[in-house]
């Protein structure tokens, strides 16, 4: 569902804040500093960072390669290891059976079960490859607009976290309240009314 897909989903943001000149150097630096790097710790379950739109598995932001026309175009890459529940259940059952056989007991305590669960999870995470997910970002710096090509709640939350960490700017999601609040045609009196409105009853 990326920008060039036949069907796209997008979430809109307003970007609050400005870079000192030269802007492009600041953006390049922030993207490079928070560029995606492969998961090195085998027990880690998630990694995220910015990557190139045109070559997402070989990120490179040099030479203003992320600038297209007047837009900053790049992608958010989130790699996650997700263990299918049936795979986990199989290995957990085997681990419990092994511990029971070794100890000669019939039951494990609650603490032992929790420890077995954590052990199985850690072992499986070291073996499981992470699944890469790519989400495109189009940032119109002049218009203070950013489009994120996903409506997924978790992906949007990750975008917001990484964006603030990378660029030190606020990223405000545009939904009914914020879209009304930032409406340039809305006078101050309108904002006062907005603060007080209550739902309309369309039925008598």
């Amino acid at each position, binding site marked *: 569902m990326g*920008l060039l897909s036949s069907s796209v*989903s997008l979430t809109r943001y307003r970007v609050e804040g400005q870079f000192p000149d030269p802007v492009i150097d600041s953006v390049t630096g922030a993207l490079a500093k928070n560029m995606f790097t492969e998961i090195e710790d085998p027990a880690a379950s998630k990694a995220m960072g910015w990557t190139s739109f045109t070559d997402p598995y070989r990120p490179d932001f040099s030479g203003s390669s992320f600038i297209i026309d007047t*837009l900053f175009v790049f992608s958010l890459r989130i790699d996650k290891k997700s263990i299918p529940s049936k795979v986990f259940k199989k290995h957990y059952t085997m681990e419990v059976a092994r511990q029971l056989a070794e100890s000669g007991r019939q039951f494990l305590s609650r603490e032992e079960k929790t420890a077995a669960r954590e052990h199985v999870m850690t072992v499986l995470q070291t073996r499981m490859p992470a699944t890469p997910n790519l989400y495109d970002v*189009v940032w119109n710096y002049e218009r203070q607009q950013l489009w994120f090509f996903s409506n997924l709640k978790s992906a949007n939350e990750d975008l917001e976290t990484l964006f603030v960490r990378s660029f030190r700017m606020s990223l405000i*999601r545009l939904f009914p309240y914020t879209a009304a609040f930032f*409406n340039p045609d809305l006078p101050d009196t309108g904002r006062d*009314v907005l603060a007080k409105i209550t739902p309309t*009853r*369309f039925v008598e």
Partner: protein
Amino acid sequence: MMDVSAAYRRYQFLGGEFLTWLWFVIETEPDSLRGIDPDLLSLEIGNRMVLERRPQRGGLETVTIKGDHAGMEEGLLAVRKGALVAEMNLVFTAGEHQWHFSLKGESLNISGLKVPETAPMESTEEVEGAVIDKTFLCDRIVQLVDNLYRRFIGLRLGSGWSETLVPRMRKWIVDETGMSTS
């Protein structure tokens, strides 16, 4: 400005009112939408609409209408019972081109956006051109939604909303569902 997450919940109803108003305008005064986009030929309800009602006792009731030629009577009946449009699929026509997309009320998220076809990309050198074309075509819908929402919010926050528009919308709901108000 209010805290964003608190505002999201507090103003959820505004998105439902926006889409319900949009449905009313599309059905009763489509010509009034011409000023929204200079090239607008038509804006029509597409093949899906979701309505939601939150009863006072709690919970959530949902009505989904699907299909290319689906009748909207069930939707209007749901509105009559207090539901609002939560999500709608729309077809925007400008000149010879059509855009299909879904709009969600509570988030104003756009999904399933299909823009008019552009020339196929034949090499990686053509990526820049493809991005420029695609963002331009997506921007038509973003601008359309922005302009529609601005018109709605101007009306919603003005005195004419409760004095003129809401009575007209109530009459539309009653007339279309074929029941008296008593």
